[in-house]
């Protein structure tokens, strides 16, 4: 097995491949990451000119799931290239299964991922202290900075791709099992759970970043934007905030691919992915359903019927 | 009452409803409080916020001239939730009103000039407040001739039929030119779009002010025709319609560049509009 590539080697390969894709007209746009305005950020970029591929980068601060941007770059008869990690690639499966894009409209460049750093864990990043990731290093220098979700990563290697830019990465066997975080929550008493979520939902700003970032949330008219009926108003209170989050979790149930974007984008750090992951656990127990998006041939559990589905009526 | 000041509506009763067209109704309303009715001093071109309690508010221009005391008239086209709810109300029902908001037609600066009104569809409603203001006995002498060019999609869609057919044509030095986009058996008058009718009639720009309101596409072509006919940007006035909520320049919704339609408008000259970003 060859040496794992360093982030800067992957970046070089990425640029080369994207330049080729654009120059040959194979794709009209490349959706990828570029360096952000701070050392611990990257930004989504949409490159149409082969010369601009120099802006593309790959490093452990590429946490965003770019798959939803495919919806802005659909062209009949055309192809957009997109750079995805494992969790992101499940988002592409989501869009494909929801008929939001066609397989031949997207050219998937997969990058097996060993984890992404959560910039919020780096207090007041000052150059020289916990500095920007060393692009030459292949190893994860700061495992303590990883997102919580990375410890439970089921698909470090993208599940769908046209090209992999590095060798496949095997999932790290979680010491406590896939749903350890959820079991811990389940073991709380009803009052403890209520207090736990009340504390979080009280902070919710109702900014809708979670919904907007979610690749499963693609309704043309979102239920929360409807006037008639007015399911939630713009009032911010515990009741409405709770209603919003629980309803949204159920609306994406069976389709949420657990990419963790909702969690990452939340400005007040509500651990939203726990809601979705709980539902994924339930679906696993009820329907033996894998995490949605893992396999494009497995339909969403709640959108499919199987005669062996649990049936408590008889 | 509590502390809401400018955002507090006041109860008013619908005293009369007139069906102008299939989807436009004119509501005559009177404030419950006679002193408020007496002191409500709107100027032609201003708007008010109408409340249907339980649903919210909508910004509707005041179509009655302030020379008509004791009532306010609003013409409402049924296009959305609130206007649909308004249309379901009956005489005797109560709504809330707060206002008047916005600037007004510069009627003082129009003294001594000939006035050309160009309206389309429901766009005649805000113009009507100024037409009736000018035609009012106490004001008529101060203004020159009044020409009203008005059109709608069809004869059925003409608003204020009584005004355009009876009242205004018989007013002193006033001519009404009505047209419809699409004629039918009930219609004996001119058939054609408002901008082309305007070009046909060809009112000269000398000492004249042109005021227009109607669907955006109509306004666009009307402005082209007016400019072609030699009207300067200062001679052309329009009134804009944008989504408004507070009406008092605080909620941030109705801005066009640095201007708020609710404070700096809705009446703008073309000269002013050209200084503003094309975002309306």
């Amino acid at each position, binding site marked *: 097995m060859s040496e794992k590539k360093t982030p800067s080697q992957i970046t070089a390969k990425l640029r080369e491949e994207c330049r080729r894709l654009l120059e040959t007209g194979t794709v009209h746009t490349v959706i990828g990451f570029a360096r952000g*305005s701070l050392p611990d950020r990257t930004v989504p970029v949409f490159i149409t000119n082969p010369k601009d591929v120099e802006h593309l980068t790959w490093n452990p601060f590429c946490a965003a799931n770019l798959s939803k941007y495919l919806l802005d770059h659909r062209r009949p008869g055309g192809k957009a290239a997109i750079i995805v990690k494992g969790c992101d690639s499940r988002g592409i499966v989501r869009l494909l299964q929801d008929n939001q894009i066609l397989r031949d409209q997207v050219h998937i460049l997969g990058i097996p991922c060993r984890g992404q750093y959560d910039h919020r864990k780096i207090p007041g990043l000052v150059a020289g202290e916990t500095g920007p990731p060393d692009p030459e290093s292949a190893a994860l220098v700061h495992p303590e900075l990883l997102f919580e979700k990375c410890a439970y990563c089921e698909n470090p290697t993208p599940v769908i791709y046209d090209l992999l830019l590095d060798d496949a990465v095997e999932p790290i066997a979680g010491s406590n099992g896939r749903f350890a975080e959820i079991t811990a929550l389940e073991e709380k008493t009803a009052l403890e759970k209520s207090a736990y979520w009340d504390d979080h939902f009280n902070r919710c700003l109702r*900014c809708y970043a979670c919904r907007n970032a979610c690749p499963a949330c693609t309704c043309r008219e979102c239920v929360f934007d409807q006037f008639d009926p007015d399911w939630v108003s713009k009032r911010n209170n515990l009741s409405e905030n709770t209603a919003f989050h629980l309803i949204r979790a159920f609306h994406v149930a069976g389709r949420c691919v657990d990419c963790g974007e909702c969690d990452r984008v939340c400005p007040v750090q509500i651990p939203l992915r726990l809601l979705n992951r709980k539902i994924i656990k339930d679906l696993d127990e009820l329907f033996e359903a894998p995490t949605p998006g893992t396999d494009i041939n497995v339909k969403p559990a709640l959108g499919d019927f199987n005669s062996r589905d649990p049936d408590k009526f008889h | 009452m509590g502390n*809401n000041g400018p955002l507090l509506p006041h109860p008013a009763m619908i005293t009369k409803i007139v069906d102008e067209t299939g989807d436009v109704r004119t509501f005559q309303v009177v404030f419950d409080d006679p002193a408020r009715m007496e002191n409500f001093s709107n100027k032609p071109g201003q708007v008010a916020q109408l409340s249907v309690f339980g649903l919210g508010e909508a910004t509707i221009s005041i179509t009655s001239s302030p020379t008509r005391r004791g009532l306010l008239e609003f013409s409402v086209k049924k296009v959305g939730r609130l206007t649909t709810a308004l249309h379901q109300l009956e005489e005797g029902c109560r709504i809330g009103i707060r206002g008047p908001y916005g600037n007004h037609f510069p009627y003082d600066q129009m003294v001594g000039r000939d006035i050309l009104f160009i309206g389309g569809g429901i766009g005649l409603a805000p113009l009507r407040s100024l037409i009736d203001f000018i035609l009012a006995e106490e004001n008529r002498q101060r203004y020159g001739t009044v020409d009203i060019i008005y059109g709608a999609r069809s004869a059925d869609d003409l608003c204020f039929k009584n005004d355009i057919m009876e009242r205004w044509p018989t007013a002193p030095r006033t001519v009404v030119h009505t047209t419809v986009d699409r004629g039918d058996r009930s219609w004996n008058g001119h058939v054609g779009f408002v901008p082309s009718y305007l070009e046909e009639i060809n009112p000269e720009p000398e000492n004249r002010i042109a005021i227009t309101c109607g669907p955006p596409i109509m306004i666009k072509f009307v402005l082209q025709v007016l400019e072609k006919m030699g009207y300067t940007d200062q001679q052309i006035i329009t009134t804009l319609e944008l989504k408004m909520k507070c009406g008092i320049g605080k909620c941030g919704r109705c801005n066009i560049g640095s201007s708020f339609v609710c404070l700096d408008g809705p009446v703008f000259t073309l000269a002013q509009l050209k200084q503003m970003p094309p975002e309306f």
Partner: protein
Amino acid sequence: MPAILKKDKLQALLSGLSRAYKLVLPVRENGMTYFKPYQTGLAIDRDYINTAMSPKEFLFPQTEKMLSFKYREGAEILITGAEPQPEKLAVFGARSCDLAGIAALDPVFGGRFPDPQYSTRRDRVLLVGLGCRRASSTCFCRAFNIDPLSCNGADIAVVELEDCFSVEARTDKGHAQLANFSQLLGEDNSGTVETSLSGAREAIDTSFDGIPDPAGIKDFLDRQFELPYWENIASRCLGCGICTYICPTCHCFDIFDVTRGKPDGNRYRCWDSCMFPDFTGMAGGHNPRPTPKERVRNRFMHKLKYHLDRYEIGGCVGCGRCVEKCPVNLDIRQVINDINKLQGGEN
């Protein structure tokens, strides 16, 4: 002339303030700092640079009841405006950028139609500013000539120095309040404050990471509206409300009624965001800002030009919250730099 408060007397000052006011102070919770109501023993976050939410929420709450309506006999409606809250609020720990934010909001809620709910809170609030010791990687108040040590706009200004706090009343209200704490405060007989302040100033000035220069921005934007640049940066915007809700100068709101199916109900005023697609959408379908490009352009032009045009006060105070929280790193400092480059290209 600033007085001295020994560091171990801070809690006593807070406790004293909490007796005269409903006091909120910066407290660490869930990894971030928020203004929380004072309780005995509640400790201030000594390390925070700024709170997650600006103090605008205390003058202009996210959710505010405006009035209630009740249907009565004979189709009459009784409309009752909401009563102002009786309590007086004190905000301890307002940074200079946030105080500048309040100064930017004052003319919005004043003007020709003064807003009684805002002005009641504004008149009653006691603003205790806290000078900053260092900048975060996202701070850039300096770009708008805001001095992080100045606490301009506060009733009482507090600056943490090496060995003590300097405490200075800036308004009559501030003087009146400080008079209650004369036993806690000492006079600065040896010019400690003066000396320490210059040290504090040097510390903070060197801690800024790179300050954009907005000097020529308004002039350029006065002339240029249709820039392809806006399309570029808008393409990544999620259209959420994060930047607007955490911004100290944003003031957009919606007005709507809530009845829960009955004829009687309440009317509310709640924060809204110009970044939401439907913000300017009209019944009938027309929307003057139909795509992210128009909305992103409108937001930045509002912060860098429109607010300045209307009120002669800048719309951005450089607090850096939007930079910190934007999920796609849409950085207003970058926008200023990019526009400066475009302007350079223009010349």
